[in-house]
């Protein structure tokens, strides 16, 4: 893995250096221009991919950011006589600023979805174009750069453009690769698969999307700056169009948008394809051909060419990586077990978390009507109640998935109500989902590593994978480390949820119906696992309907009904209270039934 990690950037730089000798061959200028265009599209497609491919937020506004950079350079050169090269950083800065402003507004919109984001960013393109064409920046006539000197970097003007684009492409690819193997990249890929779950695991989703957009825009801005002088005459009509975003989308989809090199592969293919049609005077047929390629790519290879090729070569490459990661961890796993902190589940234990008058309303529906719940350090607290009584709402409020309407949540002396979910995760609270929500495109190991990295605050993917392996071993999933979550059965997915929750080393674990849907034998495994979670030091709140497990595991239970706190105390005693039985069974029970548990279980089966 390490070796591979160093080889990729070396390969990028090496290729770029080798290609830099191209002009020395003295080929006709036309080759310089063709290669310039290939590299130009590599920069645009790859920069687009940093936000859109990695996170799945398809921006159709890349033309706006590219155009912003282009007009910045053009204006500085034509009006203020800046030397060309000095305008490039300015172009990057303006495009970046533009992106941050747009992103800061757009990403704040709750629940914004792919299509809406695409249309919004497309609209930004046309608004910006309209503003530029109507103000002195362009004035409606375009900007001519005929009088601007092309710096002498290569032997000819066309080779200069080629070399500049080559440098830009190399930098862009290095950045795209660097992000894909970093913590930032891991966060972005998680956003792509399940943004809510990523936030709950501790990924600062808003900030990450903004950073990715800023980087993406800055790179597009540089491409725009170079392209301004290459075109020599720029007009709004040709820059702020739908063509740029659609071409980069096409290139990335074709090459594979989840891979750093995918867009570059697509850019080379499409540019050369279009060129060969244009050269043969078949430009119109070329346009149709691009359409056909796009449709075929989406229908038959929705993941792109590169992942397809990788999968063909895959098994050979994947095995050693898995083996390397598997060597040391089992030892570490026992270390965790031995490291277990003393259990302190007595009634007198101090409160770890205290919810006071916690309430949540959904447009008039009171899901939770101001409950007071105290979770004591080291205990297993059962959260009970009929369906719709507010148990899951409570979990969602404490984990930050919902914002409370009123009330407070104090955890280890700190107020958490109203805080972003990723901050709550960092503070030491982890949760599982009733229906497991793994990141579908990442291996089981990486799923857990993500939680270790963000919730647990580990600095890089390598360390996080080692930590993750201990928790996979803890949950008995170590043999499945390298498979995708799709290949797990429900039982294993539930355990993956647990491993993911534990990997951030939380002080409080919120378990939402981990047993639901499991067979009796699997339940026994899960019950044993929950007990081990507490034994190694974490406090557990768990929502459950299976009474056998509640009786066996909990130190205390609280019972919700209709969003209010109905009862609190030891499970065996609480379940005998008439008001609790009434809430569960909906009937009056004269005499307290002896065991009750079988009846309750049947009710919810």
């Amino acid at each position, binding site marked *: 893995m390490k070796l591979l990690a160093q080889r990729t950037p070396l390969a990028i730089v090496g290729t770029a250096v080798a290609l830099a000798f191209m002009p020395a061959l003295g080929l006709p200028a036309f080759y310089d221009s063709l290669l310039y265009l290939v590299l130009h599209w590599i920069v645009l497609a790859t920069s687009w991919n940093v936000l859109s491919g990695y996170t799945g937020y398809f921006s159709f506004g890349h033309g706006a950011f590219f155009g912003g950079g282009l007009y910045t350079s053009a204006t500085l050169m034509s009006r203020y006589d800046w030397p060309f090269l000095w305008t490039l950083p300015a172009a990057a800065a303006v495009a970046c600023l533009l992106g941050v402003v747009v992103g800061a507004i757009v990403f704040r*919109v709750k629940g914004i*979805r*792919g299509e809406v984001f695409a249309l*919004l960013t497309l*609209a*930004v393109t046309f608004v910006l174009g309209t503003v530029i064409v109507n103000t002195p920046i362009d004035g409606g006539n375009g900007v001519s750069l005929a009088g601007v000197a092309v710096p002498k970097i290569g032997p000819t003007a066309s080779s200069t453009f080629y070399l500049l684009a080559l440098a830009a492409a190399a930098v862009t690819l290095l950045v795209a690769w660097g992000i894909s193997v970093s913590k930032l990249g891991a966060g972005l890929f998680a956003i792509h698969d399940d943004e809510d779950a990523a936030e709950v695991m501790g990924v600062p989703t808003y900030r990450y999307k903004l950073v990715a957009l800023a980087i993406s825009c800055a790179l597009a801005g540089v491409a725009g700056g170079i392209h301004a002088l290459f075109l020599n005459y720029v007009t709004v009509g040709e820059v702020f169009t739908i063509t740029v975003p659609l071409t980069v*989308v096409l290139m990335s989809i074709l090459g594979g948008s989840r891979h750093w090199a995918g867009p570059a592969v697509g850019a080379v293919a499409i540019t050369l394809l279009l060129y060969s049609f244009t050269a043969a005077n078949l430009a119109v*047929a070329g346009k149709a051909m691009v359409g*056909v390629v796009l449709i075929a790519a*989406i229908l038959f290879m929705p993941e792109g060419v590169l992942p397809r090729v990788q999968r063909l070569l895959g098994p050979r490459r994947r095995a050693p990586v898995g083996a390397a990661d598997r060597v040391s961890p089992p030892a570490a796993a026992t270390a965790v077990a031995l490291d277990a902190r003393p259990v302190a589940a007595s009634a007198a234990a101090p409160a770890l978390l205290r919810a006071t008058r916690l309430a949540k309303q959904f447009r008039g529906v009171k899901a939770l009507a101001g409950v007071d719940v105290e979770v004591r350090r080291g205990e297993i607290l059962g959260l009970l109640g009929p369906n719709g009584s507010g148990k899951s709402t409570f979990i969602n409020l404490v984990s930050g998935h919902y914002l409370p309407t009123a009330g407070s949540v104090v955890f280890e002396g700190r107020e958490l109500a109203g805080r972003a979910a990723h901050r709550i995760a960092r503070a030491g609270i982890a949760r599982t989902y009733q229906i497991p929500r793994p990141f579908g495109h990442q291996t089981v190991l990486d799923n857990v590593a993500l939680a270790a990295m963000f919730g647990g605050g580990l600095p890089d993917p390598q360390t996080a994978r080692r930590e993750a392996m201990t928790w996979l071993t803890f949950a008995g999933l170590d043999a499945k480390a390298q498979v995708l979550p799709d290949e797990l059965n429900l039982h294993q997915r539930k355990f993956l949820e647990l491993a993911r929750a534990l990997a951030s080393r939380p002080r409080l674990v919120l378990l939402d119906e981990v047993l639901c849907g499991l067979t009796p034998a699997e339940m026994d495994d899960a019950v044993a696992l929950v007990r081990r979670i507490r034994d190694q030091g974490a406090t557990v709140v768990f929502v459950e309907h299976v009474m056998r497990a509640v009786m066996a595991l909990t130190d205390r239970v609280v019972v919700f009904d209709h969003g209010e706190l109905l009862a609190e105390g030891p499970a065996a005693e609480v379940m005998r209270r008439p008001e609790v039985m009434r809430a569960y069974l909906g009937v009056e029970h004269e005499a307290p039934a002896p065991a009750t548990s079988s009846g309750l279980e049947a009710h919810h089966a």
Partner: protein
Amino acid sequence: MTLPSATLLAQSVLSGIFVGALYGLLGLGLSLSWGLLRQINLAHFAFAFLAAYLCYQLSAMGMDPLATLVIIVPAFFALGAALHALMARFAITPFNSLLVTFGLTGIVEALIQSIWTADYRKLESSYGEHRWKVAGLYVPLPELITLALAVGLSFAVWAVLRYTDLGRALRASAEDAPIAAAFGIHERRNALLLAGTCSALAGVAGLCLALGFTLAPSQIYAWVGVVFAAVMLGGLGRALAPLIAGIVIGVSEAVTMAVTAPSWAPLVSFALLIAILLFRPGRAA
């Protein structure tokens, strides 16, 4: 910026209503297929232009422009149904439908360009010569036809969706397809019917385009942004909303053009679109 005279302003509002009706008619099919079939059909615009060119060609061969509907409507119904059958076969997601239909737009554009070249074409018909002066305002016949078609079709679709079993079945399928199917709704047949209808609506809009505007293949993209704005402003899957939203946008554009310069017009629709998306993102859900 000087304020234009009352007559000029009134004429602007009127032309805004006319062009807005066309936005609405184009948006109708788009909104239905997005809202009820979960497919964002970018090729809707390409289909409209293909129909417009077809109308242009048939009129040049001596047919009355309105009579071309006899050919255009069934042909585009079949085209739309075929496209939907393909999309359904591959279980395309809404976002990928956008990309696939963009690819299709490129193909149709190339087809148009290779048959009719990239030059501007204008349908010459007797309709263009008719215009009346009502209370000092010019009312041209082609625009009046557009308005009548847009209003008539929007109300017809609205009535079908609201009052017929087919309409109820379509709305039920859009809400929850498996449940609707469990209640005995023949979802696939209905979807084909709806997709065909949307496409036929694009065909009718194409006729209006041919009557009122000069045609060029590159013009396909000029309509995308503003019609999407009308669709989003109105809300998805609704029949009357695109028409109303289209007229609101058309009028505000026309007034902007009259008060400032024509080149500022795109700002109105796109600023509106951005505002809607930011403040009412649920509209697109």
